């Protein structure tokens, strides 16, 4: 990494190319504005979450290993905005030490080398990285004053702590710090790290509606006007299932669920369309207009 241009190997993962396109757009827009170059890993593949590791341990290891190996070939640290991808990449690095036979089998099957040594960053580590954070702080043009946001971390950024080594597993604060940097008001709430149900959002909708209801109602009860997330599955479940959750609770929620990078981008003066605002299910623009932030 040179002092002039900061570069990361970028692993969008499948969701950022489909259901979470606005996350991809906003991550790239924020990186550009902060003078960081994200070089997409050329032939990345699906990390397998959350099916491979429940089907076969080697498969759960080898799918993320193939993408990591390509990042190593690029000679750059790897940035993975999707929390599920990040969790699987970190797990593969850990498993490489526990299962040398997995590494051997992977290298034989893929023809690649895998050292499991390159750092992998999640989006919050990226936004608060030593060289990135000051660039973002200096680029804030439109602080999100008066916007009360609950930061929702979900599971895989913080757990298991022995694998992710990120923030506090029970009471993380890094996203709250990012929100402060961009002038928003973080709202503490007790469901920061409760699970949204992840891929059960497809196979057990009934369960995810209940989990989403608990999280959104806790955020709203704590006085939040919006929720910030750093994971496509969290976003899809809290946003896409919010109306059903409100019906179940006989409540109206109406809490927009923003990717943290959309809020950062807004504070950097980027256009809402460039950040993919408007793609979410719960209206994301009304609140911003009301607060004169867009």
């Amino acid at each position, binding site marked *: 990494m040179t002092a002039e241009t900061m570069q990361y190997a970028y692993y969008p993962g499948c969701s950022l190319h*489909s259901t979470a396109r606005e996350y991809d757009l906003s991550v790239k827009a924020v990186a550009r504005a902060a003078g960081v170059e994200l070089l997409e890993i050329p032939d990345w593949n699906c990390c397998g979450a959350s099916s491979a590791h*429940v*089907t*076969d341990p080697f498969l759960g290891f080898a799918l993320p290993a193939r993408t990591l190996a390509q990042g190593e070939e690029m000679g750059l640290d790897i940035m993975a905005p999707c929390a599920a991808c990040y969790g699987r990449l970190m797990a593969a690095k850990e498993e490489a030490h526990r*299962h040398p036979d997995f590494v051997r089998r992977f290298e034989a099957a*893929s023809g690649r080398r895998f050292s499991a040594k390159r750092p992998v960053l999640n989006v919050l580590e990226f936004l608060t990285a030593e060289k990135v954070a000051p660039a973002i702080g200096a680029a804030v043009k439109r602080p999100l004053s008066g916007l009360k946001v609950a930061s929702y971390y979900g599971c895989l950024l913080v757990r298991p702590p022995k694998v992710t080594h990120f923030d506090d597993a029970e009471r993380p604060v890094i996203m709250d710090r990012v929100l402060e940097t961009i002038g928003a008001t973080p709202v503490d709430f007790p469901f920061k790290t409760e699970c949204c149900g992840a891929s059960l959002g497809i196979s057990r909708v009934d369960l995810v509606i209940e989990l989403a209801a*608990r999280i959104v109602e806790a955020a709203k009860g704590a006085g939040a006007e919006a929720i910030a997330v750093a994971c496509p599955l969290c976003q899809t479940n809290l946003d*896409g299932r919010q109306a059903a959750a409100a019906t179940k609770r006989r409540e109206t929620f109406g809490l927009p669920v923003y990717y943290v990078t959309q809020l950062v981008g807004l504070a950097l003066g980027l256009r809402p369309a460039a950040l993919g605002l408007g793609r979410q299910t719960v209206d994301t623009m009304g609140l911003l207009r009301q607060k004169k932030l867009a």
Partner: protein
Amino acid sequence: MPNLKSPLQVSGGPEQRRFLGDVDAMAGVHVEACYQCGKCSGGCPLSFAMDYQPRQIMRLIQMGLADEALASSTIWVCATCFTCTSRCPRDVDIAGVMDVLRVMARRRGIRPGDRNVGVFHRAFLSSIRRFGRSYELGLMIGYKLGTLRLTEDLPLGVRMLAKGKLAIFPAVAKGRKEVAAIFDEAEKGVAADAVKPAGAAGKGGSNQ
């Protein structure tokens, strides 16, 4: 790792102890260290939908009751959120154990205790095997056909298509042959495990 100089007495005969040993070896844990405090179950966000609490699953393993554990809905309702693993005072990676039980259930041909979840995993992996990347629309169609839940979520699907959140055609990784080779290697490993004597699965072998 907890002190295991005087592990809990494990009931049952060699067959029962073999199941415990296999789970321990595959997950790299000591399930016998669990002293049933219930912290895992208290914190589990999905325990309300499980037939056995996570704590009870640990006990079933200690007692060697493989059939009950492997046919439970618990192992399929578990979302692998790692709350249990993070909080366990005995350092049992409970979520990792759930993964191992799902793998074992599949290898033994036990029908998933939650049918939809099983169909979802199969549809998802077959899309990755073919394209190297997940193909959401194809996955949804495969899942719908597999479960016959044809109309559930139709409005959501239509809305996502309209917002450009679902691609019509699959994205394909150039190295999809390499990805397929990884799948083949995984299957070879399963076949190799199957011919080993029972109790020798995974690293470390059994505890006998």
